[in-house]
């Protein structure tokens, strides 16, 4: 045991160092690797060309999500529905062939376990506390909600992990985001993380791994913790962490790929050591007062462009730094917003409830609670709910949530990334606004010319009901 007090991040890092090079780069062992169709074909191709095998196929799990249409996957006879877009079809087919060819477990599009990689990993117990988890997708940070060191990688790194089960990395610096006090009634984990990103900025966590600390996080469910950690990357941090505790263990116990019996007990005993020691030093520390957090919404095209729902569209002059003024003007032009407009007067034509940030059962429950007995406004043309996995979908249907959504005028879809990114058929039309529970409001993210306002599931439901951005607390 090292004598110096260590942060949670440092403990996980230290446990995975295979060797350190003279230049300070470390070869880090990767415990879990998630693979989807978009960022893997070139990696598998490179392995094939070089004649290299996958070192540890059982440590990788493959599932399609990004490209997959969210309409029915099977016809009345149970035959898989063809995929219209030939490029998407080719990419999906490549994963379906590549994964088994390299001995990797593949969850097919029609399986009930299929879903968004970051929903599937925790749900299957594949993602575990204290592990290193990577995926060719930046929202891998999500799994930090279980106390795992999880981060997104590029395709060359996907290839590197497949071939060697390791990555060459420079250690990041530990950063603490400490939240003091309690969130007010009706304030969700999503509101909190948007508020945090607004405070520290889209690059505020660059070079750091964030640990979220404070009683607020201890009281959160695992689902809420996953939402918080998911968006760490939007603050520039490669990963975000919340120390595992009894809530985490209760969530994981009995999941298909979680340890069992005596191994479970040994795992829990180990996981209990995974927290930052008293006196451990963080290279950067930010304190947030929970009482300051209001329902949050974005106005611009960077996730740092956050205001409280009671606020107004800012003016470029509000920003001290020149490059931010220029960026703000560009954002306002793209978003078609006039400075000074109250956020609650911004009309909404589309509502998307889904994505790895907010598509778990609790998210759907929160949205359904607002929609029950209500209907979407007439100016909301398209409202869609996309569960994060087939298992979430089945659970929601057991609870009758699908009926609540359908009665409220929403479409109830099959699991996938859907309108989180404009690469499958679910897109927001050019120039139209979308109240979205996803994680990115970038230019064109939800489709060319689409205007995204990031919100929580309850806030998205509220916007659907009134047809404009709305303080959900007025509807409860």
């Amino acid at each position: 045991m090292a004598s110096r007090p260590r942060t949670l991040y440092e403990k996980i890092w230290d446990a995975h160092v295979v060797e350190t090079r003279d230049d300070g780069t470390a070869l880090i062992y990767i415990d879990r690797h998630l693979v989807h169709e978009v960022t893997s074909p070139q990696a598998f191709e490179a392995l094939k060309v070089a004649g290299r095998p996958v070192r540890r196929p059982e440590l990788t799990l493959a599932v399609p999500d990004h490209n997959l249409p969210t309409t029915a996957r099977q016809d009345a006879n149970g035959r898989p529905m063809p995929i219209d877009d030939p490029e998407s079809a080719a990419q999906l087919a490549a994963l379906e062939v590549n994964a088994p060819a390299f001995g990797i477990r593949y969850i097919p599009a029609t399986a009930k376990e299929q879903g968004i990689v970051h929903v599937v990993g925790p749900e299957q117990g594949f993602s575990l506390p204290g592990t290193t988890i990577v995926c060719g997708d930046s929202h891998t940070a999500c799994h930090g909600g279980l106390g795992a060191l999880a981060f997104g990688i590029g395709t060359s790194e996907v290839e590197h992990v497949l071939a060697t089960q390791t990555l060459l990395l420079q250690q990041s610096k530990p950063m603490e985001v400490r939240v003091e006090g309690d969130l007010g009634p009706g304030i969700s984990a999503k509101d909190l993380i948007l508020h945090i990103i607004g405070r520290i900025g889209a690059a505020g966590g660059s070079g750091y791994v964030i640990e979220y600390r404070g009683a607020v996080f201890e009281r959160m469910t695992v689902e809420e913790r996953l939402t918080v950690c998911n968006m760490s990357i939007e603050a520039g941090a490669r990963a975000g962490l919340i120390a595992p505790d009894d809530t985490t263990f209760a969530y994981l116990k009995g999941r298909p790929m979680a340890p069992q019996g005596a191994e479970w007990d040994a795992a829990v005993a180990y996981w209990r050591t995974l927290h930052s020691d008293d006196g451990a030093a963080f290279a950067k520390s930010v304190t947030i007062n929970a009482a300051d957090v209001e329902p949050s919404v974005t106005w611009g095209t960077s996730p740092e462009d956050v205001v409280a729902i009671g606020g107004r569209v800012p003016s470029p002059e509000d920003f001290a730094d020149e490059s931010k003024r220029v960026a703000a003007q560009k954002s306002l032009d793209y978003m078609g917003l006039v400075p000074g407009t109250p956020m609650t007067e911004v009309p909404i034509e589309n509502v998307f409830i889904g994505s790895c940030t907010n598509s778990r059962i609790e998210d759907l429950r929160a949205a359904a609670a607002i929609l029950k007995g209500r209907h979407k406004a007439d100016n909301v043309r398209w409202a869609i709910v996309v569960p994060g996995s087939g298992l979430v979908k089945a659970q929601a249907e057991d609870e009758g949530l699908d009926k609540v959504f359908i009665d409220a005028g929403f479409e109830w879809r099959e699991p996938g990334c859907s309108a989180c990114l404009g690469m499958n058929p679910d897109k927001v039309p050019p120039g139209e606004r979308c109240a979205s529970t996803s994680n990115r409001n970038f230019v064109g993210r939800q489709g060319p010319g689409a205007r995204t306002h990031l919100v929580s599931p309850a806030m998205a439901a509220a916007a659907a009901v009134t047809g404009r951005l709305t303080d959900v607390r007025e509807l409860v």
Partner: protein
Amino acid sequence: MQPLTRVEGRAIPLGLKNVDTDIIIPAKWLKTISREGLGAGAFESLRAEPGNVFDDPAYKGAPILIAGDNYGCGSSREHAAWAMLDLGIRVVIAPSFSDIHSGNAVKNGILPVVLPQDAVDRLLEVAREGLEIAVDLEAQTVTTPYQDRFTFQIDPFRRDCLLGGLDEVGLTMARGEAIGGFEAARTAAQPWLMRGTAA
């Protein structure tokens, strides 16, 4: 990957901050199973604007791009690096980069140069005049015809990989014994960690 030692040429004066990888290459271009041809979709939304720097004949084929803070933030898509490479970009100069994107860039033979904002502002001025800029990885300098000379820092391993055009996967595979030793120790002490999908 192509080795990189010195790059000299015009620089595209983009200057924009928070250029995310959705801007560098939009999602609809990601449906490819190859690394080639992505230049056609590179910076698509910016190129839709009349008078944009990318389509200005003065910067056609320029091997250097100058951007603002937090370049390459957002999605981890390596397609962003492939798209830049396809445009002929070998060096990006910015005050800061996203961690993931700068790693992807290096793995594809693109050099991310971090310089303070005032140095970047100065280089933007020079680039806007259409003058050539020289980036020397061995000397770790950026120089202009006006005798400006800025030095930059780079991680020595990344520098070696770029200079030698090294195959990182091959280098690590050569450490197979060390990795095997690590795995054996883990299998003995914490077997559940090694089970994965076989649990």
